[in-house]
């Protein structure tokens, strides 16, 4: 009986997560365009609904009813598989993400996370690594030069930034002595990690920007020289899957930044509910993503690689060594 | 493990640390070496090896276990390390000119050799299957790359690729055996294995596991049925690397095989029957197939298979004498094989490849001295007294007969008579043909030194084997 309740709870949480993540792009795209409008001294979408609020819905319907175009030379199986492969990893990662400790619902204590893995951080990196497959298959299967080139570049970019990202996190693990995200947040009850790990945070966030293929690192789909990168040939609902996946990653990076460096649901000064604190922080970082998009110019590809390998990686390695030395110095009598 | 233990461990592994550190420094320094100053790399590499050698010899006086039973510095290891140093230094001496001729300009060549050396050293000292594995891989990874070092030559690429794939398979087989041993005994330490298996020596699973481990190691030795890579890799690799591989990694694999075979666990199983069959078939194959080779490097590849077979006979003999005989064999083989490879390397100059046996037609006429050296190495490889090669074989035979394996000894000598044919065939080519063209051997002072040294070893050990024999025996008995 308990087992069924537990399983039901898991199923419910998973369903909720899927629903949120699927629907989140709707407000996010609206927000993005609105913010872009404001930054560029214009209004943004105004036609559909009040201040264009229904614009995303209209876009969704449009994508749903667009013709599904598959190029003649494409590998049809991989071409169809790729969007789902791209969609899955960011969603799966959220299983391991805690949004808080517990909340009381109708007297029952319900945890604000689906699963508290002791190796959550490793799991996150492992699953994010799988994102590459959707990209490379999508680009390869289309058999279009822009798509192939785009997918290769995207892959190279993702794997390049994965390394500094991984290194950056190790400092956090050293502080928390755990790979469980829950433990990491608990360890920040007093002081947020960003205080001890500013470099780690910087590396992680920049690498996150690149992982999410956001400006200033959205080289792969640079409209000017690559059409739209690996998803050049995609249209309709399959294209939508890629878009949803990208927004999920944006959200994921924001969430991870908050959990790893900004104390998660631990608040400061103002005693707000933990979940609210958490969401506020996440919202701030999502806003940061959007802000960057309309502020920074795009890097050249060689610059992109140089930043990843020659700036972020040495920084993150130095960060580990310095953290290690500092911890050793503290531990030594 | 306290700080004092750590210090002890560092001391015990000092030679390895020296080599690895030196290799790392050279790796970085090598990037700043300008064209035409490569000799700096050679001397630096030689210096590193010599420092390590001094360390090894100073540490050889007592047995030093280190790193909680993963590693040991004893005489047995020291003996093998000396063999490795020899092989590496001689390879260094032979390399610069050859590298020039082949257009290998990069410093990584020396660094990779140093890393391979450190891998071999770890293998010789390892007392845990994990450290054996790590050493083994460190060594083979470097040799993979070195094999493919002539990037512009398809033959080299191809050899390297074959080597990697087959090597990885053999590693897989080795590891599978290790995992079974771990599963059956609950430990990966060689001593622990023996203790855990005591009293139940005939567990078929354990036998299988040991066979797997031995199979993986036998691959590195180049014995049948894992020999297919040897000729291709030897032919395709740069000749200096071939020379190195035919001696160093082979000796390292033997070091591990002997360590495993010193182990009562293995002694209790009947693996030696398998090994005996391997030895016979290996020697037969190496000897007979070499008869029809036209390519010198390929011939030497098969010859090295045959020699591996002969050395395995020593493993079959087992016991102190058997082990000492394998060790002495490897030491002597290092001298004579590097000598003959030195000649092949030296011949590679201008438009002479030095790889085809016909290239040597009438070599004795313009270069009687070098021809005499070749004669020496070849007769040594064939095992004719008074060269060292004879004493090596003799001692293995003594060990075999001591254990009562007279039939195996007879097979061994008959096969080595077959093998003698292809060595003296080369003698025939260099002495009994008329030279077809001018020779232009790349005889730099370094090559001269290497050849002189190997020749001295080949004839010296042959005439005065006593000291070397005692060395080998003490390394077994007193270690």
């Amino acid at each position, binding site marked *: 009986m308990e087992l069924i309740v537990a399983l039901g709870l898991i199923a419910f949480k998973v369903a909720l997560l899927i629903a949120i993540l699927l629907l989140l792009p709707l407000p996010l795209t609206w927000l993005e365009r609105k913010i872009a409008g404001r930054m560029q001294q214009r209004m943004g979408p105004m036609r559909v609904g009040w201040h264009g609020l229904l614009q995303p819905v209209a876009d969704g319907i449009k994508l749903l009813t667009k013709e599904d175009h598959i190029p003649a030379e494409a590998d049809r199986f991989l071409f169809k598989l790729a969007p789902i492969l791209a969609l899955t990893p960011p969603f*799966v990662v959220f299983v391991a993400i805690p949004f808080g400790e517990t909340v009381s619902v109708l007297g029952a204590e319900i945890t604000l996370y689906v699963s508290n*893995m002791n190796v959550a951080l490793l799991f996150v990196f492992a699953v994010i690594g799988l994102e590459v497959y959707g990209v490379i298959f999508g680009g390869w299967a289309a058999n279009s*030069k822009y798509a192939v080139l785009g997918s290769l570049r995207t*892959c190279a970019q993702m794997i390049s930034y994965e390394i500094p990202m991984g290194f950056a996190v190790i400092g956090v693990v050293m502080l928390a002595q755990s790979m469980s995200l829950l433990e990491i947040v608990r360890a920040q009850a007093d002081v947020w990690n960003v205080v001890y790990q500013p470099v780690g945070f910087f590396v992680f966030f920049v690498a996150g920007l690149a992982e999410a293929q956001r400006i200033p690192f959205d080289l792969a789909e640079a409209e000017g020289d690559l059409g739209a990168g690996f998803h050049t040939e995609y249209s*309709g*609902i399959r294209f939508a899957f890629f878009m949803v996946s990208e927004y999920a990653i944006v959200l994921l990076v924001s969430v991870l930044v908050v959990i790893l460096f900004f104390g998660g649901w631990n608040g400061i000064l103002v005693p707000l509910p933990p979940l609210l604190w958490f969401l506020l922080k996440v919202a701030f970082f999502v806003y940061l993503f959007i802000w960057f998009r309309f502020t920074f110019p795009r890097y050249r590809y060689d610059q992109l690689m140089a930043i990843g390998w020659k700036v972020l990686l040495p920084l993150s390695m130095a960060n580990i060594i310095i953290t290690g030395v500092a911890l050793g110095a503290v531990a030594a009598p | 493990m306290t*700080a004092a233990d750590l210090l002890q461990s560092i001391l015990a592994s000092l030679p390895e640390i020296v080599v690895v550190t030196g290799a790392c420094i050279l790796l970085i320094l090598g990037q700043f070496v300008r064209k035409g100053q490569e000799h700096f790399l050679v001397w630096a590499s030689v210096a590193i090896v010599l420092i390590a050698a001094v360390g090894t010899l100073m540490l050889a006086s007592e047995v030093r276990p280190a790193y909680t039973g993963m590693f040991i510095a004893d005489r047995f290891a020291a003996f093998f390390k000396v063999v490795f140093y020899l092989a590496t230094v001689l390879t260094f001496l032979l390399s610069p000119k050859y590298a020039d001729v082949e257009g290998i300009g990069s410093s990584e060549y020396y660094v990779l050799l140093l890393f391979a050396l450190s891998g071999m050293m770890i293998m010789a000292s390892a007392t845990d299957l994990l450290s054996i594995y790590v050493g083994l891989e460190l060594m083979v990874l470097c040799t993979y790359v070195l094999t493919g070092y002539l990037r512009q030559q398809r033959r080299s690429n191809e050899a390297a690729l074959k080597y990697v794939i087959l090597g990885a398979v053999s590693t897989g087989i080795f590891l599978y055996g290790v995992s079974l041993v771990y599963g059956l005994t609950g430990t990966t330490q060689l001593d622990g294995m023996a203790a855990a298996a005591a009293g139940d020596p005939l567990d078929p699973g354990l036998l299988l596991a040991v066979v797997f481990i031995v199979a993986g190691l036998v691959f590195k030795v180049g014995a049948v049925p894992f020999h297919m890579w040897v000729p291709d890799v030897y032919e395709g690799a740069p000749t200096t690397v071939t020379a190195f591989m035919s001696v160093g990694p082979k000796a390292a694999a033997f070091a591990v095989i002997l360590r495993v075979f010193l182990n009562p666990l293995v002694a209790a199983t009947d693996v030696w029957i398998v090994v005996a069959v391997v030895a016979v078939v290996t020697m037969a194959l190496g000897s007979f197939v070499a008869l029809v080779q036209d390519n010198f490097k390929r011939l030497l590849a098969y010859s090295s298979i045959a020699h591996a077979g002969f050395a395995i006979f020593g493993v079959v003999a087992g016991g102190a004498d058997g082990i000492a005989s394998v060790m002495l064999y490897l030491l002597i083989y290092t001298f004579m094989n590097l000598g003959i490879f030195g000649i092949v390397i030296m011949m590679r100059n201008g438009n002479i490849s030095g790889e085809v046996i016909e290239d040597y037609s009438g070599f004795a006429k313009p270069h009687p001295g070098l021809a005499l050296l070749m004669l020496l190495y070849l007769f040594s490889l064939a095992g004719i007294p008074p060269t060292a090669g004879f004493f090596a074989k003799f001692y293995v035979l003594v060990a075999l007969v001591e254990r009562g394996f007279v039939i195996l000894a007879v097979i061994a000598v008959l096969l080595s008579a077959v093998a003698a044919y292809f060595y003296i065939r080369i003698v025939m080519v260099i002495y009994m043909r008329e030279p077809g063209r001018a020779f232009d051997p790349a005889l730099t002072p370094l090559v001269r030194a290497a050849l002189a040294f190997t020749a001295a070893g080949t004839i010296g050990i042959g005439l005065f084997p006593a000291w070397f024999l005692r060395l080998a025996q003490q390394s077994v008995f007193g270690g």
Partner: protein
Amino acid sequence: MTAAMEFLPVLFMVAGIVLVAGVTLFVSSLLRPSNPYPAKNMPYECGMDPAGDAAGGRFRVQFFILAILLVVFDVETMFLFPWAVVLKDIGLVGYVEMFVFMLLLVVGFAYAWLKGALEWEA
């Protein structure tokens, strides 16, 4: 049991996504038109007729080098994670050993840098 409960949701999640994606695709297939013709089915090449094969296996070596670097560095992280977790329990030896490890890593990195493996000539 707990391990199973921790990783079971992953399965749920994968199943859920596949389900949702499948349903969406199905709904979409009911709604969307399908009107392919050869010109539309050509790969996008700015309106020109496509020339040559896109997926012929010819691309810059730089990508391979990156892949190899990733494989090496990513696996190094694998050693760092467990070390970081038990840093305080592992004692002096473990603490020092990882610095040796990092040092070797730095040497490798420096080498790759000096060798120009990190240069991306446009």
